């Protein structure tokens, strides 16, 4: 049964809230600016509640089951963080309140900055970026400002490994850079020779994902960093994969100048069906002055009045990247996660994330070839075409749904054919991993013996396979007719 839309459920005159009578003298509203109808639907509270409850039941989250979506770190979102973020003292405060009456919020931001600095090995952190991609853009704009300040504004190339996430080249373009793709080598590392060849006076920097999107740690990362730095480039790290490295290795120690953290991956804030996220940016001492504004600073003992923490602007800041202070609600959740785990907990999490991923790798590789089959980090990539079959990765993915699992990431990275990118996270029990292996093996068998079943999958979902071509052709992107 499909669920009607809000507009289909609407009928004239219904109300779900009761607003107060106007208790002040009515002012004259300029008639010519008024609209006749604002076009919203009209429903009862019961209809709204049922509608969204039913829709939610047609959606799959980590709370529903295993969600090994590679590169997305679908870890468990602790329920205590959700409660904490809803405390009135955090939810009901305005970004322009006097600093003296939001010291709790500023302290939280300050301490989160400090912890991220320590985890990443950076000189400073700005919490401003609202997502990973915005963190990338921010970093690139900082690199641009940094070179310009040194009279090297002509540097206009950014090296980007071919396995990089699409946001990397897209961010480079937005920052006015030319994205220069560098290939991977036979072990899944960035090809050092190619990097060497690409290093020139035009080099502005590199965007490095480490572990990369194959789930592999760059075996010669320090050499790579050295090459870029020698030719005057800045090394930017895409921190999306930090879940493998928390309390295991600090990117700053490896020579990374800038890196964004994904609070919505590594630090367990929810993905929210696509967002909001938060992408704090760490910077080494050379780059720190360019960080976006604001940053929270702690005043020295002798300067403290009622204000201990204050918002400041870095000396050469590129400016603001979002309306106010960033995704504060996510800071509360991430900070709650960090306080709950501490350094040993973070390390244990990273270790289990890597353990789980390697376990799945070795258990699946007989059926699903793993092109760069070496110890992986928190995720790995295999070919989604089971040995001896013709089916495609997408068919395997859809069939997995019938077994109650969310599929892995499909067709990314682009460097592996029929890629399936699998990231189990540290939270999953062995029993779940084993059940997933069983399902994958059963599907591989089906792929060989009755491939039609895969191509027709899924069948146990609220809708069967959807016609994406039709959607793109018809482009019905809102309710077609106006309500009467």
């Amino acid at each position, binding site marked *: 049964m499909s669920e009607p839309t809000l507009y289909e459920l609407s009928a004239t005159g219904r109300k779900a809230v009761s607003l107060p009578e106007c208790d002040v003298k009515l002012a004259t509203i300029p008639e010519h600016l008024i609209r006749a109808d604002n076009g919203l639907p009209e429903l009862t509270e019961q209809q709204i509640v049922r509608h969204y409850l039913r829709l939610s039941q047609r959606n799959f989250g980590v709370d529903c089951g295993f969600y090994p979506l590679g590169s997305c770190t679908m870890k468990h979102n602790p329920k205590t963080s959700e409660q904490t973020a809803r405390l009135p003292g955090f939810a009901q405060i305005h970004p322009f*309140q006097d600093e003296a009456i939001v010291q709790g919020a500023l302290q939280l931001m300050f301490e989160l900055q400090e912890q991220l600095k320590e985890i990443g090995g950076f000189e400073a952190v700005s919490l401003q970026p609202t997502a990973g991609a915005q963190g990338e853009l921010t970093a690139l704009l900082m690199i641009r400002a940094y070179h310009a300040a040194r009279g090297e504004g002509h540097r206009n190339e950014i090296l980007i490994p071919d396995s990089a996430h*699409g946001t990397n080249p897209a961010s480079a373009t937005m920052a006015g850079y030319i994205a220069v793709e560098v290939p991977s080598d036979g072990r899944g590392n960035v090809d050092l020779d190619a990097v060497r060849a690409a290093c020139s006076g035009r080099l502005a920097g590199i965007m490095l994902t480490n572990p990369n999107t194959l789930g592999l740690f760059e075996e010669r990362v320090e050499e790579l960093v050295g090459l870029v730095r020698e030719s005057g480039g800045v090394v930017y790290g895409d921190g999306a994969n930090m879940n493998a490295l928390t309390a295991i290795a600090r990117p700053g120690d490896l020579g990374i100048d800038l890196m964004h953290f994904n609070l919505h991956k590594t630090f367990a804030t929810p*993905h929210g069906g696509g967002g909001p996220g938060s992408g704090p940016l760490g910077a080494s001492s050379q780059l720190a002055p360019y960080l976006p504004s604001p940053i929270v600073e702690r005043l020295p003992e002798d300067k403290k009045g009622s204000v201990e923490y204050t918002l400041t602007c870095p000396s050469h800041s590129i400016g603001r990247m979002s*309306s*106010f202070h960033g995704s504060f609600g996510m800071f509360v959740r991430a900070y709650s996660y960090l306080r709950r785990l501490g350094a040993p907990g973070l390390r244990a999490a990273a270790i289990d994330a890597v353990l789980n991923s390697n376990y799945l790798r070795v258990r699946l590789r007989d059926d699903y070839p793993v092109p760069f089959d070496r110890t992986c980090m928190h995720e790995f990539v295999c070919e989604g075409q089971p040995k001896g079959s013709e089916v495609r990765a997408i068919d395997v993915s859809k069939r997995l749904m019938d077994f109650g699992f969310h599929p892995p990431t499909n067709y990314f990275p682009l460097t592996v054919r029929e890629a399936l990118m699998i990231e189990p996270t540290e939270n999953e029990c062995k029993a779940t991993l084993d059940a997933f292996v069983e399902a994958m093996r059963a599907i591989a068998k089906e792929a060989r013996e009755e491939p039609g079943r895969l191509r027709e999958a899924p069948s146990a979902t609220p809708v069967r396979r959807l016609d994406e071509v039709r959607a793109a052709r018809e482009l019905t992107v809102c309710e077609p007719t106006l309500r009467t």
Partner: protein
Amino acid sequence: MSFTTHTKDERRAMLDAIGVASAEALFDDIPLHARFPDLELPPAISDIELERTFRRLSQRNVTLDDGPSFLGAGCYRHFIPATVDYVLQRGEFYTSYTPYQPELSQGMLQAMFEYQSMICRLTGMEVSNASHYDGATSLAEAALLALDEAGKNRSRILISPAVHPHYRDVVATYLSGTQASLIGPEDTTLSAADLVGKVCEETAALVIQTPNFFGYLEDLNGIAEKVHARGALLIVLVDPIMLGLFQPPGSYGADIVVADGQSLGIAPSFGGPSVGIFATRRAYIRRLVGRLVGKTTDVEGQRGYVLTLATREQHIRRAKATSNICTNSALGALAAATYLATLGRQGLRQVAELCYHKSHYAAVRIAALPRCSVNPVTPDRPFFKEFSVELPLPAAEVNQALQKEFGIIGGYDLGRSYPAMTNRLLIAATEMNPREEIDRLVEALEQITASRAVR
């Protein structure tokens, strides 16, 4: 603490399957000197301490519920119906990823389709994306879209000086990566009609906010025609609450409409996260930024929804994508959709009316105070929800006195953004301010200005 998932035996079995002696051995690729650093993080605390610590920390903040508040300036205290959090707390929604796999994501996809539909109706536009980060970044992306559409020769975004200063900052930061630049006169009292004359052959778009940062409603009828005649686009930044009552930008020809959606059911939360609204004409659908949900059918003919036109996006088009945005603010859009559905046609109009009347009541009463003038320079322009007050002493001082002596969170000190306006306060009144609170504010202002103004 560490939350052990595997038993010892299970762990052993897994390591054996992998063929390593210990889990630590899995990290051999990491340079030894950087491996397993000692981090100086505060020790883990128990769940009980966690609860206590956060409660206490949160209590170091004075909240908007603790007394009357008149802060706005882009972030507002509006009524949030209980349905919103009911929906937001559904684990199926908030713990899901972007709906790449539509068969398992029909709930979020349909909800986003409905969000798009309501935003289209509300703004009078033909296409809405499924959200951007917030109002400021929506505006920045709108500017980029306009620049792209306008072509190489038009590299100026003409922005009204009465656009939210933070938004102007953000647009400027975004443009710092391009050849384009943000320009605009300094005089914040210029109306849209004044600005339209400045559109020239270098202008890609004119950006107008209505109500503008100072609360004035811009009459934009006829503006778009003029802007178009000069070859540029019209970008309108709105307050979504206003759209419950006032003309939608689509009705007067806007090309792109952006807004911050915080007012639609999202708690202020120190300014974030929020949701960015982005709507435009169908002509620009292939240049749209961010996710877009389209209707389709499954193999059995059942109605369904999918992400569509992904070819615009970074994961397909990479360096040529229309934007780098990936994670957006889907849950914010869900909150906004729930809010709009709950308030409904009558409710949103009523909220807008209440904001209008309350702010006017406050303005009239404050204007009557001997030492305060309301909306100085252009007192006759219509305004909505917000207005400014010229005081006989620094706004910062007045705010302090309001807070300390009257328990009132005052307005926005305009001096923070405009050095020439240190004595000016931007005051917002919404449906959340009963008359009695406004009266308290007026009385407090009277006392403060009377007792302190003479210095």
